[in-house]
């Protein structure tokens, strides 16, 4: 009976730790020079413009694909779904870097084929690249609501005289609106937070200018901009909490059979999207490897990426355990969980800015691995909490009661009943944090100890220096890590359900 109390206290501490960066930013920005020379308007316009265009693009790509993968007789729907969801696992800097290097005068496309292409930069370019890596959010949430739809509704509409297209528009679309909205808000959140795409494609959004200010020793102005960005994030989070997802039990699944022509057209579009999001970056980095070889690659980079990520995974799991336990236990815990998982909404560059300042105030943390690991934990804690919470929820209080009344003291009951049931979630949570931390760029850029180069920071240095050829190995390795993450994400759900049914 004392464990929930312990987990509550621990959750309060974690929640405070997550809120701390915001307090730090407020403190830091007090007295900052508000005058950015009229730049603020441009930054807000760019940020909102990029977000709006990306959301629009993601909805236009994601919704039709959700329909195709959920309700048509397209062969290999599940393979298509896995492939179409894959761009979600690719870090945006991989895509942005590839597009930056591939197009425009002197780009890889021109070098290889002699075709002149316009450069992909600025608002349009950034929106295009962001769309390619965020549409899976809309695809997945929309598909989830579509799967709950009763197919008889469409049949009813058609028997009342509506053609299929009109039936989908008038009957299906309004019912999956909240699913689309949920996906669109995730896209907005991701776009607001993303650092690499606008930075590489040279669009002055909040995240890019925060980094510029940070480098210009304008930490107070970086903090002020961070707070302004957080306001936008908060708006999205509030909207997100208001999107209710209604559940219905489908009587009969909707199944649309496609005509041969339509099928070919849809397949062509899906191939095009996958080529743009996955094949093109892989080919650009592959071309560099083929041309420049792997000679200049320092294998230590892999360890430098993996080591802090491992520490972060371990720490995140330890912190997530009491939070998940408290969340499973009651209302107070659920609120604390919400606060503790806010870190996901705090953009990496903002988290980095706040913790850099913490490092400047607390000498023993300045430029240490510890600070980097803290940054990772605060950002990716929600992944660990989510995974562990699912498994904690499986540990019914009655199971512990049963173990106790069979004569097992509390510790033995925990070791023999709770732990084996929680362990899969703990491993999954740790792995998710590890994979995310390995691929993290902005916070790593700001917080890494001097001299520590990871795969992601190496990629960034190469971009800034312009020696693109040296990006080959880090880029391809990060793509490989992303592939592992994807396989892991896709199998995660299966594994849980399989365990549940045996």
């Amino acid at each position, binding site marked *: 009976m004392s464990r929930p109390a312990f987990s509550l206290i621990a959750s309060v501490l974690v929640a405070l730790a997550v809120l701390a960066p915001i307090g730090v930013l407020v403190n830091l920005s007090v007295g900052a020079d508000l005058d950015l020379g009229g730049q603020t308007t441009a930054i807000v316009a760019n940020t909102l413009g990029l977000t709006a265009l990306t959301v629009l693009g993601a909805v236009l790509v994601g919704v039709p694909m959700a329909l195709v993968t959920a309700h048509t007789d397209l062969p290999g729907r599940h393979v298509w779904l896995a492939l179409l969801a894959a761009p979600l696992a690719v870090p945006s800097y991989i895509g942005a870097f590839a597009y930056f290097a591939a197009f425009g005068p002197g780009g890889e496309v021109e070098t290889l084929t002699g075709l002149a292409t316009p450069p992909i930069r600025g608002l349009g370019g950034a929106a295009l690249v962001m769309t390619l890596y965020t549409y899976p959010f809309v695809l997945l949430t929309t598909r989830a609501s579509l799967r709950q739809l009763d197919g008889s509704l469409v049949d009813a509409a058609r028997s009342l005289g509506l053609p299929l297209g009109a039936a989908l528009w008038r009957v299906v679309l309004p019912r999956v609106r909240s699913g689309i909205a949920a996906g669109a808000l995730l896209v907005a959140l991701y776009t607001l937070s993303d650092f690499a795409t606008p930075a590489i494609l040279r669009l002055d959004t909040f995240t890019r200018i925060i980094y510029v200010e940070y480098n210009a020793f304008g930490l107070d102005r970086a903090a002020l901009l961070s707070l302004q960005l957080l306001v936008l994030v908060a708006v999205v989070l509030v909207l997100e909490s208001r999107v209710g997802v209604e559940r219905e039990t489908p009587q009969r699944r909707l199944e649309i059979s496609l005509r041969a022509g339509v099928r070919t057209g849809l397949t062509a579009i899906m191939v095009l999207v996958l080529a743009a999001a996955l094949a093109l970056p892989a080919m650009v980095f592959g071309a560099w490897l083929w041309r420049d070889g792997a000679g200049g690659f320092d294998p230590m980079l892999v360890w430098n990426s993996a080591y802090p990520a491992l520490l972060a995974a371990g720490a995140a799991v330890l912190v997530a355990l009491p939070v998940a336990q408290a969340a499973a236990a009651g209302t107070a815990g659920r609120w604390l969980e919400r606060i503790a998982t806010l870190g996901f909404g705090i953009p990496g560059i903002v988290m980095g800015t706040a913790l850099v300042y913490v490092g400047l105030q607390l000498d023993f943390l300045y430029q240490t691995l510890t600070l980097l690991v803290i940054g990772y934990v605060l950002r990716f804690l929600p992944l660990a909490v989510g995974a562990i919470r699912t498994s904690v929820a*499986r540990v*019914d209080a*009655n*199971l512990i*009661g*049963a*173990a*106790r*009344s*069979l*004569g*097992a*003291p*509390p510790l033995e009951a925990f070791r*023999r*009943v709770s732990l*084996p*049931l929680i362990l899969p979630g703990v491993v999954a949570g740790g792995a998710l944090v590890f994979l995310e931390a390995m691929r993290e760029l902005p916070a790593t850029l700001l917080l890494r100890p001097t001299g520590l180069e990871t795969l992601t920071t190496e990629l960034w240095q190469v971009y800034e220096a312009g020696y693109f050829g040296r990006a080959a190995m880090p880029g391809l390795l990060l793509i490989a890590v992303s592939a592992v993450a994807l396989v892991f994400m896709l199998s995660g759900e299966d594994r849980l359900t399989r365990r*549940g*049914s*045996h």
Partner: protein
Amino acid sequence: MLAIRDLTVRYRDRVAVEHFDLSVDAGEIVTLVGPTGCGKSSVLRAVAGLERPAAGQIRIGELTIDARHDVPPERRRTGLVFQDFALFPHLSVARNIGFRVSDPAVVDHWIAALGLESHRDAMPATLSGGQKQRVALARALAHAPALVLLDEPLSNLDAALKASLRWQIRDALKAAGVPAIWVTHDQDEALSVGDRVGVMNAGRLEQVGEPEQCYRAPTTRFVARFLGDGVFLRGRLSDGGVQTVVDRSVVGDVDAARRVARSGEVDVLVRPHDLDLEPDERGNARVVWGRYEGETRLYAIRLHEGPELQARVSHEVRLAEGQTVQTRISARHALALFGPAEA
């Protein structure tokens, strides 16, 4: 074996159990029955040590527990059988049953005793509800409990299974010679498996006694209504005993009637099988409706001078709606009497 005295269980501001007294003798099965939320499960949880009593005393064998002296669940030797079975999902049937049993022969014995041989290596999720229930019972008994506590053991099972499993569980408990408290909300179950029945309502024990006694001689109207169908019929206390409007037969005990009567009136509990019906043109009642129940038929009849009653008779007595019948009280035992309700 078990003695509960003046037990009170509180959840935050809600009182779940109040002034609860019950004792269970060696080898005895006591069923606790009552509507949902009456506190019967809280009694079990307090005895098992999953809930701390706010007041009162629980004695299990040599152990004494009260609000100040707690004994952790693992030292109470109570075998708890949960409504949702609470089988460890990551352990096989044999490992569940042998959770803390060192002697494999004991595990084998209980696997055989409950007919689980072909499932010994199965995981709980693959078992049917009835199998899970048997595993849960085997697990409790294999740990040699001083007392078994069953929390609605049959409520998650389908009707066909309930009837047979009821007796299997009872036989297993009796064979093991372990006393048990068996909580249920099903009156039939409570009356048929319990050596004694305790009827609970709103956190209090209304009556405890042998099943027949509780059914035939309920001490409160709640117990009367909860354990079976029946109506309260106004009766008059006269020289020899109590008479009702139904017929001249004397029902109920004079002494009992004197205790509860007000201005010569009492309420008599008449259950459907206390009545007999016979077709009779000059009878005292008319048939309102009839229902065929297989072995029996249930009729609603309206007395010419009185209320509507229900009578359960042999299926051979076929009556038409509207038919006039002669009704009489056929019960050979004294009917339960209550002080007259305010009209």
